[in-house]
C-alpha cells in the first residue's frame, strides 16, 4: 500500500468514525430527546459519510490497486493524488461544518468547489492507470 493510500484510507476511516458518532447522537436524540439542535448535525453526518468515507475510501483503494506503469513513476503523478486527498478533506470540512453552523453560503460553495476539484484531480491521476495490465 502506498503512503498516499494509507493516508487516504485512514482519513476515510476517521470520517466513518465521526459520521457514525454524529449519527448515534442524532438517533439518541430521536429516542431520548435532550437538545433538538443535535438534529441540525444531519448535513455534516451526510457529508462525512458520503464524501469523507465512501468517496475518499474509493479514492484511497484506487490509488493502491489500479495497474501501475512499467517505468517510474510507477504510480503516475502522485501529486494529483495528494491534491485530491487535501481537497476532499478541506471540502468535507467546509461544506459539512458550514451547513451545520449556518456559515455564509460562500464557505459552503468553497467546500463544494474543493470537492469538485478533488474529483477532477483524482480522475486525472487515475485515468492513465485504467489500462491493460503490463502496458
Amino acid at each position, binding site marked *: *500500500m*502506498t*503512503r498516499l*493510500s*494509507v493516508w487516504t*484510507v*485512514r482519513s476515510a*476511516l*476517521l470520517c*466513518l*468514525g465521526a459520521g*457514525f*458518532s454524529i*449519527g*448515534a*447522537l442524532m*438517533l*439518541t436524540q*430521536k*429516542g*431520548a430527546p435532550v437538545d433538538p439542535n443535535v438534529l441540525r448535525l444531519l448535513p455534516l453526518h451526510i457529508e462525512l*459519510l458520503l464524501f469523507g468515507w*465512501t468517496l475518499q*475510501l474509493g479514492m484511497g*483503494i484506487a490509488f493502491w490497486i489500479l495497474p501501475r506503469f512499467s517505468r517510474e513513476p510507477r504510480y503516475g503523478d502522485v501529486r494529483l493524488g495528494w491534491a485530491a486527498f487535501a481537497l476532499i478533506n478541506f471540502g468535507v470540512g467546509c461544506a459539512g461544518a458550514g451547513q451545520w453552523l449556518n456559515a455564509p453560503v460562500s464557505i459552503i460553495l468553497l467546500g463544494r468547489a474543493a470537492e469538485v476539484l478533488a474529483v477532477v484531480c483524482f480522475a486525472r491521476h487515475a485515468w492513465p492507470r485504467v489500462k491493460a495490465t503490463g502496458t
Partner: protein
Amino acid sequence: MPRLTRYFIKTALIYLAAAMLLGLLLALRTTIDFPPELLALSPVYFHLFMVGWAAQLIFGMLFWMLPKYSREKPRGHEPLGWAAYILINIGLSLRVIGEPLNATQSELGVGWLLVVSALLQLSGGWAFIAAVWPRVKER
C-alpha cells in the same frame, strides 16, 4: 475469502434486498393504504441501504483485501471484526423495529430502543475501525 467477509457480504445482500423491497413499498404509499408504522420507515430505508448494504459490503471487502497484519495473524484483531459485525447488525435491527414505533406510537415508551441501537452501531463502527486500522500500512 475469510469467514467474516462472507458473513458481512451475505448479510449485506439480504439488507440490499430488504432495502429495495421497502423502497418499493414506500413508493406505493400514494396508491395503497399502508399502516402509519410503514410510512415512518423512510429513515430506516436509507440506513438499510447505506449501513446494511453499502457499509457492510465495504467492511467485508476491506477485511479481506487490506494488507496482512502479520504472518501469524494475517487478518489482525479478528475478534474486533466479529464484534463489529454483531454490534452493527443488532443495532440496525433494533432501529428497524424502534424507529417506526417511536415515530407513530411514542406513548409506548420505546425510545430506549433507539438509544441502544445508537450505542450498538456506534460501538460496531469504532470496533471495525480498530480492527482494520493496523492493517492500513505501507509495505
